[in-house]
């Protein structure tokens, strides 16, 4: 299976992520696949290795999914880490990808959650279509 992201696919994803950033006042949003590969990102990129962030996020999500299974849950669909300055919100986007939202105290967790919920469905359809295309190849 290959995952092919065309320019058109990426434009649609970028548009979606961009809207998420501007409406939620988040600092940075990235979309990764569950094996840790970076798909897209929008917003003010933090001064960190984004590829490493993507890989660690996928690992974190995978490890938590194992905890969920141990507890008899199918999966935890969201994770939230609160820091002193920066907070991170991880949300599962369908079966294939994860959206990571970095935000600080300029916005609120409630607004972030609301905007993420509004974004998830649209992104999920876009990402599923890309992965379905890959399965057929």
């Amino acid at each position, binding site marked *: 299976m*290959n995952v092919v992201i065309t320019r058109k696919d990426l434009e649609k994803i970028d548009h979606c992520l961009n809207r998420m950033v501007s409406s939620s006042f988040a600092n940075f949003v990235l979309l990764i696949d569950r094996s840790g590969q970076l798909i897209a990102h929008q917003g003010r990129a933090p001064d960190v290795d984004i590829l490493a962030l993507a890989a660690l996020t996928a690992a974190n999500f995978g490890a938590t999914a194992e905890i969920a299974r141990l507890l008899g849950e199918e999966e935890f669909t969201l994770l939230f880490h609160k820091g002193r300055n920066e907070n991170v919100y991880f949300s599962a986007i369908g079966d294939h990808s994860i959206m990571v939202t970095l935000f600080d105290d300029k916005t609120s967790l409630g607004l972030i959650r609301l905007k993420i919920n509004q974004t998830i469905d649209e992104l999920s359809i876009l990402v599923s279509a890309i992965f379905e295309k890959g399965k057929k*190849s």
Partner: protein
Amino acid sequence: MPFINFSKDEIQCKIVYYGCGFCGKTTNLQYIYSVTEEQTRGKMVSIDTKGDRTLFFDLLSLNLGKIRGMDIRVQLYTVPGQVHYDATRKLVLKGVDGVVFVADSLKVQRKKNIESLINLAKNLAEKGISIRAIPLVIQYNKRDLDGGDSEILPLEVLEKDLNSMLKVPSFSASALKGAGIFETLREISKLVVKDVSRKIMFMDKPQVSVAQGETRDG
């Protein structure tokens, strides 16, 4: 599962270093990190225990340059080798495009090498991947111990144990001293890029013309 991004002209691949505990997977990555230039590599990320054992994985991202205008970026991962970390190994194998199996040449590790290779085949099969189909390279590590106090297995024995059925490219190496490390990396990268190019060729997409060019190079 390679990621082919036609918008950024980039192909991202995942290569996993697999093998039993203390065989030298992390040392492979540390050596690569220590001798590659900063602009071609990303940060080395390690999730390990205080005893220097890999708890989850090590990660090193490398830029292999361009093939027909497409940037080839590989992410090198290691897995924890200890038997009881099997769930973690399965997680790291997700989306893998190529595997380097690092075998420990020490005689006392003979059984563990074989068990680890069987474990790799089993974990790949669970993901619907055949060990015979995926790009795979075997590295016989710790060859520098030859002639020392520790008894090591002759290459013929290791080949017979691990590679008699698979018949994949194999390399002698010393991860600590750097011998054979880049030969291994070069070969697995070549196999992965070739495999990705072949897969792209079969795709009925308008981008095929870009991708076909890579095959001639790859």
